[in-house]
């Protein structure tokens, strides 16, 4: 049945990869990043003096930049750094669920759509910013190892994978509470020594980061609050004296974004549109489909916990606890500003939990009276359909990103040449990248009829 689920998911994954492969790199993010790589030795990126510390990401880009042989090979390598983890994530996800019955396969197909259609996944598709996309399959792989009977190489592999994930982005730190949750719920592969080693690693890392930089502004980026967004300076003026309530709000925003698709960037856009009486169709689909899956997960999770004999943990209740812990950790790590992409690591476990919850709900339908059975089937079909529209929209949004990148190359060159006139390395790299930016033939967004666009949430 795993093959059947992969076959049904293949068009989504292949088209997503094709969209990324054919997308031009953005002028705004990529050129400055490559300039940084070209101007500095790789060792420079190991020093934790900046707000954003992604040493392995930069070292990998540096290796590609200096040793790939040509610009084309470098850019292809950077794209593969995004595409390979994406494919790996979906394949590992289905492999881990290992559907054996048709009901399993049906629930798994919805769970794949939950994974791909979630905002936390979608917001991590922007090339060349692959760091969380690398961390997502790593977190899943660690979880798979933790749930297998221990072998000698498992613990070193888990430590190494955790360090790689953290090295690409600090969101990788969520793996440490994940291992702790696995240990607490007596996962077979989560030993005390491994848990202690990773806890020590987390403490050492936090100390290393805190000592590496002398000043930390209270807000690094714009933060949302209610229906509006505050620029860092404005946020600092209002909340700088005691920013902790704002941090709690921002962390809760990231968690709520995974659970309800709202708020985004800390701003309650859908609620705002609802209060004004003109919500978009896609907004209602996002809100309702996320809320429905979240309700199902809570029902299934609490039921799993109740069913377990005292002191024992079933694989299902373990997944529920893991999802809660990763969700909380993702929220805490995004305390400074909330973005959809910062929920990326939690989305993997949310989708895992969705599989078990939908399967449990379907099994419940089978023993329900006829009327409840019919209502339940209709509700599950609508839920599955809603998530499929979200997954399809993810492909279209990746294509829209690609077209936007190409348009940027066509219209922003004069402005960039003026703005960066004093930075010859930047201008040189930009000049060399014009070809890929303007002649790449991205898969253009499908020009669906307006009602389809409104349903998918496409501009």
């Amino acid at each position, binding site marked *: 049945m795993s093959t059947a689920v992969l076959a049904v998911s293949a*068009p989504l994954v292949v*088209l997503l990869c094709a969209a990324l492969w054919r997308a031009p790199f953005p002028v705004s993010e990529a050129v400055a990043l490559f300039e940084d790589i070209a101007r500095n030795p790789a060792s420079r990126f190991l020093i934790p003096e900046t707000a954003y510390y992604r040493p392995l990401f930069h070292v990998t880009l540096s290796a590609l930049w200096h040793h790939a042989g040509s610009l084309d090979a470098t850019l292809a390598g950077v794209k593969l750094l995004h595409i390979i983890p994406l494919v790996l994530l979906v394949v590992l996800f289905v492999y881990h669920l290992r559907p054996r019955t048709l*009901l399993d396969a049906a629930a798994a*197909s919805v769970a794949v759509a939950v994974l791909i259609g979630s905002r936390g996944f979608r917001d991590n598709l922007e090339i060349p910013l692959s760091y969380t996309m690398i961390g997502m399959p790593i977190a899943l792989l660690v979880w798979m190892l933790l749930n297998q009977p221990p072998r000698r190489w498992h613990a070193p592999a888990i430590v190494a994978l955790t360090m790689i994930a953290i090295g690409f982005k600090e969101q990788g730190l969520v793996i440490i509470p994940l291992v702790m949750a696995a240990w607490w719920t007596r996962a077979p592969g989560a030993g005390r020594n491994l848990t202690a080693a990773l806890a020590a690693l987390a403490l050492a890392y936090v100390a290393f980061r805190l000592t590496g930089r002398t000043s930390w502004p209270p807000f690094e980026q714009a933060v949302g609050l209610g229906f509006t967004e505050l620029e860092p300076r404005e946020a600092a003026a209002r909340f700088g004296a005691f920013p902790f309530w704002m941090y709690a709000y921002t962390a809760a925003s990231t968690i709520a974004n995974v659970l309800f698709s709202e708020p985004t960037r800390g701003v309650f856009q859908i609620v705002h549109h609802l209060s004004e009486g003109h919500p978009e169709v896609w907004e209602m689909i996002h809100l309702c489909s996320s809320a429905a899956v979240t309700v199902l997960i809570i029902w299934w999770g609490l039921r799993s916990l109740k069913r377990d004999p005292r002191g024992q943990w079933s694989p299902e209740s373990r997944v529920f606890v893991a999802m809660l812990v990763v969700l909380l950790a993702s929220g805490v790590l995004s305390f400074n500003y909330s973005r959809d992409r910062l929920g990326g690591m939690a989305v993997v476990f949310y989708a895992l939990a969705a599989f078990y919850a939908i399967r449990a709900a379907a099994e419940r339908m089978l023993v329900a009276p006829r009327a409840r059975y019919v209502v339940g089937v209709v509700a599950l079909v609508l839920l599955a359909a809603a998530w*499929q529209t979200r997954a399809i929209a993810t492909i279209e949004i990746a294509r829209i990103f690609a077209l936007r990148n190409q348009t940027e190359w066509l219209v*922003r*060159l004069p*402005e960039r040449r003026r703005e960066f006139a004093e930075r010859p390395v930047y201008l040189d790299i930009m000049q060399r990248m014009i070809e890929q930016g303007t002649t790449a033939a991205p*898969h253009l967004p499908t*020009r669906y009829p307006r009602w389809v666009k409104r349903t998918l949430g496409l501009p």
Partner: protein
Amino acid sequence: MTTRRLLELSIAAPAVLAALVLVAVEVWRVTHPRSELFVTPFAYSLAEAIERDDVQRAYAFIRAGQDPTEPIQVRHPTVTAGRTVAVPPLLWAVAANSRYSAMMLLGFGAQVDKTSVDRAVCLADTLGNGELAALLRNYGEAVRACPGVTPGEPPLLSFLSN
């Protein structure tokens, strides 16, 4: 069909349907790449692409070798009063309020001289398009005075005759 099988197939159906729709659309994309489902309407000339501000299509003409400084034949019921006139592409982009096309021409029309840009700034100002005028101002001389517009004549034609 058992209730179990019906339930299983019902939950799987949207995923299967989505996969089929995606495959069908992509097969259509490969076999009909010029379908309106995938591309913007064809532009027969640089002027038409600029008028629609279809920057990808406009750039295709430049990439194919069309000189971005060479005047192009344009005709519009109001902007040229229905007459066919030859105008520099940048001026046409301003007259059509095609911001993206104007910026593309500045980026890829290496020979766009400052006098042409100044004329474009004046036209944008006259047409009340302050945002585009401000953008263009960065690439021209400091315009001191713009030529006047002949009363009753479309601004583009006045600028061409000045």
